[in-house]
């Protein structure tokens, strides 16, 4: 059991090192995150100001925190639809992965989590720094939000990998899952609260979002890290993320098992 865990932790490290082979991508990522952060900040801060300084529980400082924490988490959580399983199904490389004594799903998620975690140093922290230097941002002074926040962000990273794996493994049926990935990206990033914080959305849309795992990808860790949700409520957020993770993982496992029976490996 311990050696099994060790193997998958190694794969996390491999993902991390693979991503570190492309440092320029991280620099470009920070530039993009910071750029969109500035745009988001100017629009959302203007909205708060025009509402008289308070908008659905946000003031200027907490809104700035929302903007920059959400931007900082993009590189980590990767709320887009792409995944290695989709790419390797399309190319047929999945054949090689299937002839290893490994759980394909576990191996893919481990690698993907590693790739995400690489973003902490070169993407998350610089983006936060840009926010602090430009609009400024309010961050809590207590320790608890950070400890819980790290937990929530980790859950979000793993959940994101598990969701994108489940989406990508649909390629076992359709070969090319790119259309589905685009749908996931558009709907998912919106419902995750990437562009507008969920409390600002109409109630019916909030209800719709709550029925999906997407808020757990971004809104949840943003709320916990920025101290908007604290105490027992913060634990509840983490538990909620955990449940979505179990659900997404189970779905991916079922799809993998069913898909492996009808997969036609591409290429001779």
């Amino acid at each position, binding site marked *: 059991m311990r*050696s099994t865990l*060790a*193997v998958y932790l*190694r*794969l996390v490290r*491999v993902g991390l*090192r*693979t991503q570190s*082979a492309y440092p320029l991508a991280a620099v470009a990522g920070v530039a993009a995150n910071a750029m969109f952060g500035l745009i988001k900040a100017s629009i959302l801060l203007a909205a708060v100001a025009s509402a008289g300084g308070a908008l659905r529980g946000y003031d200027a400082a907490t809104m700035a925190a929302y903007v920059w924490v959400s931007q900082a988490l993009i590189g980590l959580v990767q709320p887009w639809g792409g995944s290695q399983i989709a790419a390797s199904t399309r190319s*047929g*490389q999945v*054949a*090689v992965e*299937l*002839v*290893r*004594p*490994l*759980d394909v799903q576990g191996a893919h998620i481990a690698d993907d989590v590693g790739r995400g975690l690489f973003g902490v140093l070169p993407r998350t922290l610089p983006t936060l720094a840009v926010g602090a230097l430009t609009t400024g941002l309010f961050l809590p002074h207590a320790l608890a939000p950070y400890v819980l926040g790290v937990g929530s962000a980790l859950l979000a990273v793993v959940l994101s990998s598990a969701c994108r794996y489940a989406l990508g493994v649909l390629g076992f049926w359709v070969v090319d899952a790119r259309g589905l990935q685009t749908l996931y990206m558009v709907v998912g990033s919106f419902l995750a609260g990437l562009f507008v914080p969920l409390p600002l959305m109409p109630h019916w849309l909030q209800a719709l979002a709550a029925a999906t795992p997407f808020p757990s990808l971004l809104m949840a860790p943003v709320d916990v890290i920025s101290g908007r949700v604290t105490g027992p409520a913060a634990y509840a957020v983490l538990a909620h993320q955990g449940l979505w993770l179990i659900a997404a993982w189970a779905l991916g496992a079922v799809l993998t098992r069913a898909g*492996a*029976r*009808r*997969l*036609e*490996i591409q*290429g*001779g």
Partner: protein
Amino acid sequence: MTVIRTEELTRSFARKGTRRHPLARPEQLTAVDGLTLTVEAGESVGYIGANGAGKSTTIKMLVGILVPTSGTVRTCGLEPVRQRRTLAGRVGVVFGQRSALWWDLPLRDSFELLTAIHRIPAAEASARTADLVERLEMGPTLGTPVRQLSLGQRMRGEVAAALLHRPELVILDEPTIGLDVLSKQRLREFLIEQRLEHGTTLLLTTHDMGDVARLCSRVVLVDHGEMAYDGTLDGLAAQVGAERVLVVDLAEPHPDLTGLPGSRHLGSEGEGLRQRLAFDATATTAAALLAQVSARVAVVDLAIEEPDVEDVVRRVYLAQQRDG
């Protein structure tokens, strides 16, 4: 012990025609058609056939990554699809077109990871890795990211990766494709060594009859998904004729070298400066033929061409049409 046993193994694919009516029933393409094959431990089988003959499809079913349409298959006594992960620990596969190595990491890391994935104890893992590295002369490239290796260097890495866990059955799908003569030779010598030392069972698909001649004690030839021949290479040669081609470069232009006993003139280039002569290796020898040519005209250079797999397949096909 039987390592591979298939009975009436069949796999067909639905292929949608491009110009057909969209509602038309998809065309069925049978890639492997009723293949019955048994391979015993320690055998070395060359699994040959033209492109699209069903070789790769067979291999995918043998390792459990493709579900047969009908028939049965057992590899190392296991049911490949159901017991895929267990089987993965007992076979080593090289898919010539794909890499089992981690593209962005140094070669060394791939070996470390694979030994960890196969749960090989650390001491054994490093001894086995060191042995393979030495024999395949990979020492200087261990620290190089895989994406920067040459094809020959990478293929040696792929073969080592497939052998790290000492599999009972090694399946090599086009292992020498694209390699230069020297790299091919080195890889073949290595595989012969491994078989001698570990008694590994080897199944090899290739387009290169040289691979078969040097590595395989048995040849299985498939054509359109069906077995066309199963036996020794000599037997195959006897069936289709062991015709080889002697290419001679002459000192001066010469009329076509026809009428030499045991040979057939195939063609001339450069006003007869280079001529190609087919001869039956069971009836005469290259040396005897060369002596006959030399008696007529001075020979500057020569080469002997082996038949390629496509050629053999075509001749088997023709022979069977003639007999049937």
